[in-house]
């Protein structure tokens, strides 16, 4: 059972999980079903929680366990459940209807990952901060952020934009975990609270938009101009 105490193994484990997070993100770009997207987001958040827990264990930083637990509770369980409920209540299992087609979207996501590696390289200084994690994790975090942006622009339906916004936030969380072992606890709690409230607020808005417009296609929201 040495590997439980071997920091090198810990780093590999974290890198592996970060790679899986990135795979899930690209899967979200490729998937066309809304329900599947929400589940992929849940899985991604669960992995993020696992990454946080692994970092807490191998670096003896117990305060990260709280962030890990909150991630699993809020983003892997509560938010997906709320969103799925909303999907059921609206009563549609529609497709995502991206603006750019799926194969091209995946190629663009690949390109954004490359950009993220370049960006991450520029401000990662291993010599200055001995304990910081490999720049792979940081690059994944930046990729999540950039691909999340791309998903926001590329999607027409209101609810799918909410999922994209949440993956953006996942990217920031991963960056915080791997750069500084997370933010101070009170800030972290505040952020989780805001995320939860934001999902509720956006969910209510989506529901009401669906009721009044009979569609969630936000490209139809075009009455206010000039």
């Amino acid at each position, binding site marked *: 059972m040495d590997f439980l105490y071997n920091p090198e193994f810990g780093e590999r484990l974290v890198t592996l999980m970060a790679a899986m997070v990135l795979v899930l993100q690209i899967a979200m770009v490729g998937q066309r079903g809304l329900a599947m997207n929400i589940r992929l987001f849940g899985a991604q958040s669960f992995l993020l929680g696992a990454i946080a827990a692994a970092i807490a264990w191998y670096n003896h930083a117990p305060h990260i366990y709280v962030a890990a637990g909150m991630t699993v509770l809020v983003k892997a369980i509560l938010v997906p459940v709320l969103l799925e409920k909303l999907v059921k209540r609206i009563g549609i299992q529609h497709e995502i209807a991206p603006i750019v087609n799926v194969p091209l979207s995946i190629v663009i996501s690949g390109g954004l990952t490359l950009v993220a590696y370049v960006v991450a390289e520029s401000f990662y200084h291993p010599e200055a901060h001995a304990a910081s994690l490999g720049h792979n994790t940081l690059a994944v975090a930046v990729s999540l952020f950039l691909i999340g942006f791309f998903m926001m622009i590329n999607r027409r339906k209101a609810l799918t934009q909410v999922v994209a916004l949440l993956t953006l936030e996942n990217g*920031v969380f991963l960056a915080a975990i791997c750069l500084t072992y997370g933010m101070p606890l009170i800030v972290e709690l505040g952020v989780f609270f805001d995320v939860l409230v934001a999902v509720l607020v956006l969910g209510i808005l989506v529901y009401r938009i669906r009721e009044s417009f009979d569609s969630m296609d936000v490209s139809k929201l075009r009455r206010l101009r000039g």
Partner: protein
Amino acid sequence: MILLLLFLVPLAAAVISALARTRRVMEIANLAAFGIAFAAALAVAGQVAAGGPVSLWGGFLYADALSALVALLTASVAVVCSVYAVGFLREDERSGAFEDDKDAGLSQFRKYYTLTPVFVSAMLLVVLANNLGVMWVAIEATTLASVFLVTFYGKVTSLEAAWKYAIIGGVGLSMALFATVLAYYSAHNLPGSDTLAGLNWSVLAAQAGQLDKTTMRLAFILALLGYGTKAGLAPMHTWKPDAYSEAPVPSAALLSSAMLNCALYGLVRYYVLAGRCLGADFPGGLLLLFGMLSMGISVPFVLVQKNFRRLLAYHTIDHAGIMATALGIGGKLGAFALMLHMTYHTVAKSLLFLCAGNVCQQFKTDLFDKVKGGVIRIMPVTGTVFLMAMLAIVGMPPFPLFQSEFLILRAAFGSGHYLATALFVLFGTGIFAGALLHVGGLVLGSGGEQPAVPLHPWRDLSMLAMAAILVIIGFWLPVPLLDLIRGAARVVTGG
């Protein structure tokens, strides 16, 4: 303790309003809470003026002159708007403006009187939080609290506006959150950086010279994009006209003055960190770029505008640009001009929204075509004040905004930003022409055959009070307030 009182009292009013069963209780709770908050903000300003920065809980809450100034501005707009709202919402109920909504009546009052204090309380927390992370949480909370104020009338267009507001704000703030993480990381090789205080602005500012430069550069860019979205700098401004024209007027007044200040406050905090870490040229140049772009973009929209609430919104984008420009020019004069402009703009812009609200309620429309002019004959007081406030905000002397805009120009010219100076004058002229043309027509134009309507005490007296403040500070800025403005400018320039 007074710091705690400042943002907890409005929160208490929110709880009371959420539980209250009559409109009267909600009105009293709101009026009392904002009155107390205003007194507390005055007290904080007094303490800061007398003995420098005040802090509580080991620096968790922290107020220097900049915080005190913005808190005072927020609290004064909030107190005037709370008086105005009493008259405005009663009139809405009387004239049946709530009927679109299924659950009209009391629940509408409850929505307004609960969300507004939460919104104001979050804005006050923004300026009192020393920790950049807590500041972010509070700014995000201002968005979340105000989304349902934008959907207040439950119209289809309000939903559209609220959606844009929430989604664009959400994306912007996720960038600001990234900026917060990077600011925290930029101090990672300094001692004590991994504690809660490691993210305190006062701690970071004190050792800004040793922060990691590359990280700080990226942090500032993200903060500028993030908080710039919240301030409505172009090209992230598209939510603004929609949200301002759909929200009930007292909320729009708060959004366009107090919340703009809070977003700019966030920018100023990052500007100081970046300026001390990288030199003022890098953040200053970016701010100038966005400032000029915002001023430029708002000109055509002001010139061809058909709706007077949207006109005011584009005008706010212009002023966000002016303030970003002033910060970008920097230096002692630029910082002073920024604080002066922020003070005057807050008073004048909220006053304009209150006037627009009166016109809107009287004519049941916010389109220039449908009002057909002649407001001054039907509503003599509102018409006069509207025109006066418009003259003030486009920078006509002797009104105070002439003074602050002139100072910004002088600072720009003095520091060698000739192109910026020229563009500033050009865009300023465009706005001047557009705004005066439209509002002049609205107030003075032909039409207005109906008899004059009597004053609405709550609504019109609060508007007159704000107008009185505008005139008074234009001719005689009280010395303590001037000192506070100078102190706030010193926070920016250091020393």
